[in-house]
């Protein structure tokens, strides 16, 4: 049974069709990759699914329930939580406090939330930095913190928006391991990612978005060989004249 079902979702900004009739399913236990060139509409899909934007048409259902009109916190409460492409730590709070905010979604008292937060920090390898304020964190740690905070809410579905962007290859490999470990705990993941190494390593299935429309989908190794996908990424049109800078 699919946990998350997106059916015919469209979103228009002024004259721009950011997302056009996008449909897909996220079955329980899957890691689903969502790729596409810059501006293809990936983050807009996330904004609609997580409740930050209302779709102009189409529906999003989670475990059979329509999410129409629900605000992000209500969607988080139902077990689906997102991260932000540009990490948004609470800058003046310590790392531990950042994660406590997430953990309070599950429990009513700070003492219990602190317990959860400490476990999550341990899992995400941030324990040593627990006392540092958000503004002092390096980019890789900010990315980890995004993941840790989201995880602290106790989700069944994680929506990860480019958690690998800007990391070195070593850091990327470590984060891939972490996402695997999280998946191993039974959490389903929808992954927006530009770093192909991560997409290929993690995704069981990949969807390709271009100009707001889904143009391909399937196993990662098939998708990357799909001519439509190559065209979308490299910008080669039928005359073959547009690719390359010189």
């Amino acid at each position, binding site marked *: 049974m699919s946990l998350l079902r997106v059916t015919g979702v469209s979103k228009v900004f002024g004259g721009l069709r950011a997302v056009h009739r996008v449909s897909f399913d996220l079955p329980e236990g899957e890691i689903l990759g969502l790729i596409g060139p810059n501006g293809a509409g990936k983050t807009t899909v996330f904004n609609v699914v*997580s409740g*930050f934007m209302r779709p102009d048409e189409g529906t999003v259902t989670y475990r059979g329930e329509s999410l129409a009109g629900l*605000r*992000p*916190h*209500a969607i*988080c*409460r139902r077990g689906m*939580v*997102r*991260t*932000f492409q540009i990490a*948004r*730590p*609470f*800058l*003046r*709070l310590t790392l531990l*406090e950042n994660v*406590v*905010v*997430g953990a*309070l*979604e599950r429990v*009513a*008292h*700070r003492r219990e*939330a602190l317990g959860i937060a400490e476990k999550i920090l341990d899992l995400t390898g941030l324990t040593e930095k627990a006392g540092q304020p*958000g503004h002092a964190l390096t980019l890789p740690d900010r990315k980890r913190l995004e993941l840790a*905070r*989201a995880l*602290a*809410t106790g989700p069944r579905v994680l929506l990860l928006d480019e958690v690998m962007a800007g990391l070195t290859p070593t850091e990327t490999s470590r984060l891939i391991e972490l996402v695997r470990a999280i998946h191993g705990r039974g959490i389903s993941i929808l992954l927006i990612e530009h770093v192909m190494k991560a997409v290929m390593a993690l995704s069981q299935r990949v969807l390709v978005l271009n100009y707001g429309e889904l143009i391909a989908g399937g196993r990662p190794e098939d998708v990357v060989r799909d001519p439509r996908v190559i065209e979308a990424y490299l910008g080669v049109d039928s005359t073959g004249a547009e690719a390359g800078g010189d």
Partner: protein
Amino acid sequence: MVRIGVGTVVGLILLALPFWVSSTWQNLLITVFYYAFLGQAWNILGGYAGQLSLGHAAFFAIGAYTSAVLAVHYAVSPWLGMFVGAVLAALLSLGIGYLGFRFGLRGFYFILLTLAAAEICRLVALHVPILGGYTGLFINFTPNPWQFQFKGKIPYYFIALGFLVFASAVVWLLERSKLGTYLVAIREDEDASEALGVDTFRYKMMAYALSAALTALGGTFYAYFQYYLQPNTVLNLNHSVDIMIRPIVGGMGTILGPILGSLLLELLGEFSRTYFAGATAGLSVVIYGVLLIIVVLFLPRGVYPTLVHRFRRLMRGRPT
């Protein structure tokens, strides 16, 4: 242990102080406690939740007028009336909050909304007969504790101190609660909080109502300390600024900020009044303004956070 010791000593000094100092200093201390109390109330919304209000005079006035009208016209003790005022102020804050938060007003736009709401309240108070209109509302002095009226300053000293201790206890608990943690998260990043399951609308409303209700209690204290309410004094912009300036100077979002801010500003005000009031008219106010600018320039984060920062650096500098 050190903290308990310091707390006990400070507590004993505060209990003994009014019996040792002159009436001028009693007045000054009452003003310090009273504005620290109002600052603490404002701090819940402004300092912790990060929603700056420039209209807290409205809640203050509701507290003052409600308990005064109930006592003058309906013979209800202000000790009860002040809670009626607190409830009414909370209701008004929920109305303003609904408009502001439901429609996503943030930053300056929220500030303007709170300012406009307070102006409307001022106009209402100026034109409603039972509130005394432009003439204002006088309260007859009948030294009766049940009527919140006392001879001498000492009872007011202890009531003001009690109010401040109460508000500080509320903030102390807030800092250790889910509500307080969520408010700080909202201040830091509203969208990120919402994504993490924080019902930002609901928690901002709670902060607003709590802040407004406490502010209204301060209004009742003022009414029975001054025995006179006039819309252009209690309900103007200056008064809203008076309420918010102390936590801003002392350190927003800290429990000691409003207290230190209130103490510092009162001492600055007293200093400029004492030494410059006799000179040219208005000079003392100018001096006060200049001193305020100096404080804000050199301690932009507020007195308390700056002191903590300096102290930590000092301790780190020393080999232990």
